[in-house]
């Protein structure tokens, strides 16, 4: 029972499960806050209906995001104690700041939002939602800065046998972390937009609650259109940064083995880590990888073979993850662009488009999970890039304990996920509640 391997599995399972809920919380909270502000300002009933309908789905999702979030903090201590000891001076403070500055605000005000409908004025109640949304996204900022440190450690020195903070400003202005923030936060809005559009499409196809869902769809479409393009452009900047700071990850993302100038992008390949080459390659665009990585067709791109074997990330998941993310990202740009043309008055007459949008709900979910696979698997074998190896970071504990907790996580999370999505689907299909008063 290798505790390192089991802990990696457990961390991957817990994090990916947590991240099924987080982006929707981040994006949807902002959109709901906007809807409720519209209601507070105009007094139009349709905005209240929208707020309450999307709010209900939001709350089920929120609950799952919150409870699975505690696991992540605990796991650094329980499963990655050597890591915690070694970089806690820098990393721990980011988590503690996240809790005291952002998570408190979000968790306290969500309670006020749920139970405060009759106790607060419409404007105050909408403001509470803005606080929830702002705090949630601020949480993401701190967590992504913490991840930014793992990807590209800055602002520390090795002292007393551990990484000690010397420059806090460098840590919170870490370019890698900032690029992650501007990638993940708009991507979350994009995910929420697809969630809204997909569910709205379901009702529009059935021609029910048309006013609520037509408005919701068009609102989400604007958000989705803008964010899909922004995420792609920002992703390009992110890519150039990765090629500068984590060249091995770039090479793995593209299954690029030989160091060459005018490096090509291969559309599809089956990489073999043993033979240090691609067994199959289909479709190659010369110079594209050089262009993407360094914004220069002729730039030299270092191949995997020129990295020591023990400094190469697993190639296949990184390669496939990157393709999935970019492919789905492109698809989402096309879908939202087409919708943007239809949006004025043709949406309701385009059932095929609505049907496609209904089935497109998983697209941003898969794209975001894939993105994290690229980021985290592509960083291996390092837990903190260039500073600490994942193999040195696990707790000195018995593997059997980890095995038991891993099985428990799979069972409990599987159950919660099933119940959570059952409820979300149930309320999504049910549509807005008729007014009780």
């Amino acid at each position, binding site marked *: 029972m290798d505790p390192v391997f089991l802990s990696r599995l457990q961390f991957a399972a817990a994090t990916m499960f947590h991240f099924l809920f987080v982006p929707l919380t981040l994006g949807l909270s902002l959109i709901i806050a906007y809807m409720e502000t519209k209601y507070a300002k105009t007094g139009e009933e349709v905005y209240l209906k929208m707020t309450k309908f999307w709010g209900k789905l939001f709350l089920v999702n929120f609950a799952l995001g919150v409870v*699975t979030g505690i696991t992540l903090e605990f796991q650094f201590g329980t499963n990655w104690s050597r890591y915690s000891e070694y970089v806690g001076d820098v990393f721990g403070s980011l988590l503690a700041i996240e809790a005291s500055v952002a998570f408190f605000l979000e968790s306290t005000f969500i309670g006020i939002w749920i139970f405060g409908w009759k*106790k607060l004025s419409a404007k105050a109640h909408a403001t509470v939602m803005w606080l929830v949304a702002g705090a949630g996204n601020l949480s993401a900022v701190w967590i992504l800065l913490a991840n930014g440190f793992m990807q590209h450690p800055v602002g520390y020195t090795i002292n007393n046998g551990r990484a*000690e903070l010397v420059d806090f400003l460098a840590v919170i202005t870490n370019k890698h972390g900032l690029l992650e923030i501007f990638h993940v936060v708009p991507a979350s809005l994009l995910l929420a937009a697809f969630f809204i559009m997909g569910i709205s499409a379901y009702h529009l196809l059935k021609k029910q609650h048309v006013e609520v869902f037509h408005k919701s769809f068009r609102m989400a479409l604007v958000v989705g259109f803008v964010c899909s393009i922004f995420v792609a452009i920002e992703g390009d900047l992110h890519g150039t940064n990765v090629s500068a700071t984590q060249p091995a990850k770039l090479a793995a993302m593209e299954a690029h083995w030989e160091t060459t100038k005018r490096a090509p992008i291969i559309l599809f390949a089956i990489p073999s880590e043993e033979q240090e080459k691609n067994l199959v390659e289909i479709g190659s665009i010369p110079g594209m990888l050089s262009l993407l990585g360094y914004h220069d067709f002729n730039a030299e791109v270092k191949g995997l073979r020129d990295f020591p074997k023990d400094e190469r990330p697993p190639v296949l998941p990184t390669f496939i993850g990157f393709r999935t993310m970019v492919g789905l990202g492109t698809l989402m740009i096309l879908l939202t662009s087409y919708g943007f043309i239809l949006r004025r008055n043709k949406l309701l007459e385009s059932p095929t488009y609505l049907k496609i949008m209904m089935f497109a709900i998983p697209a941003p979910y898969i794209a975001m999970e894939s993105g994290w696979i690229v980021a985290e698997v592509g960083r291996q074998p390092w837990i903190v890039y260039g500073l600490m190896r994942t193999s040195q970071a696990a707790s000195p504990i018995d593997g059997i304990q980890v095995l038991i907790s891993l099985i428990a996580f799979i069972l409990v999370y599987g159950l919660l996920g099933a119940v959570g999505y059952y409820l979300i689907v149930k309320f999504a299909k049910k549509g807005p509640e008729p007014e009780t008063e």
Partner: protein
Amino acid sequence: MVLQSIWFFLWGLLWAVFFITDGFDFGVGTVYPFIGKTDTERRTMLNAIGPLWDGNEVWLLTAGGVTFAAFPKVYAVMFSSLYTPLMLILFALILRGVSFEFRSKIESDAWKKVWDTCFSVGSFLPALLFGVAFANIFQGIPFDDQGLYHGNTLKLLNPYGLLGGVLFVLLFIQHGANWLAIRTDGDLQQRAISITRKNWPILVAVAVIFLIASYFATPLYDNYFKNPVLFLIILVAVIALFATRIFSAKQAWFKAWFASAVTIMGCTFFGVAGLFPNLFPSSLDKAYNLTAFNASSSPLTLKIMLTVVVIFIPVVIAYQVWAYILFKDTVTKKDLELDDAY
């Protein structure tokens, strides 16, 4: 030295605030299956803590996060040594958290029963295990200079450890019943009041046994004999414990709740003051003890974190107090009819 000592105090304070705030949630959950007879009563209990429990739970994340940030080595050794009990607490908290949201979403008795069980077990278990864990920390945990744990999880359930667990459970029951006395009415309130009165003598007895047992099972009193002024902490806890019963008799529920909060604060600091400067003592050799001085972060991190905490924790307390005031009244039928009420 000063900075590290301040952080030791803050570390204890954050744990104490977590025990006070989420403590009454745990207490409500523990008595939930016994005094909530009807569905309406059970929903009233859930909604009595409904707007507050989530914000309360963040004190745990902050206490954990601050342990990580200010004493990374303690965080590492404590969390990995106590792997199994912490995982149990974690699963309990997860199931408790979702049961609020899930329970009233489907009208089915079997469905509600599942989440009722998750809610009550998910409240009782953390109360018990935090008590067991802290009592074991007071005694010392078998880990070596490499942070390697040499114990057995079942040994955490030694008599003194269990005594600590029982004490926590009884404290939280008292505290939770006081909260229910504030926010409920009718039969449910009467049952909650009767719990505050029946639980109290048992709590007093266990607290006395715990104070005596601590003398024999732990080195906590060493600090007290060195600085007798510390005995004031015990005095405050005892006065607050009696005050909560007196206020209960006078039907001053909020004061009774405040007094039980002070009791919990006093009990936590009884341990924290006795531990100083140890955060996580080793039972194998005193030389392995993790203290505020040998396990802390760098002075820069401690200073930055202190700035953050000094600015933001008062802000947090301010808006949480506002939330408490907003939701201090009796839970009414109207509250239960809210779309998203639990």
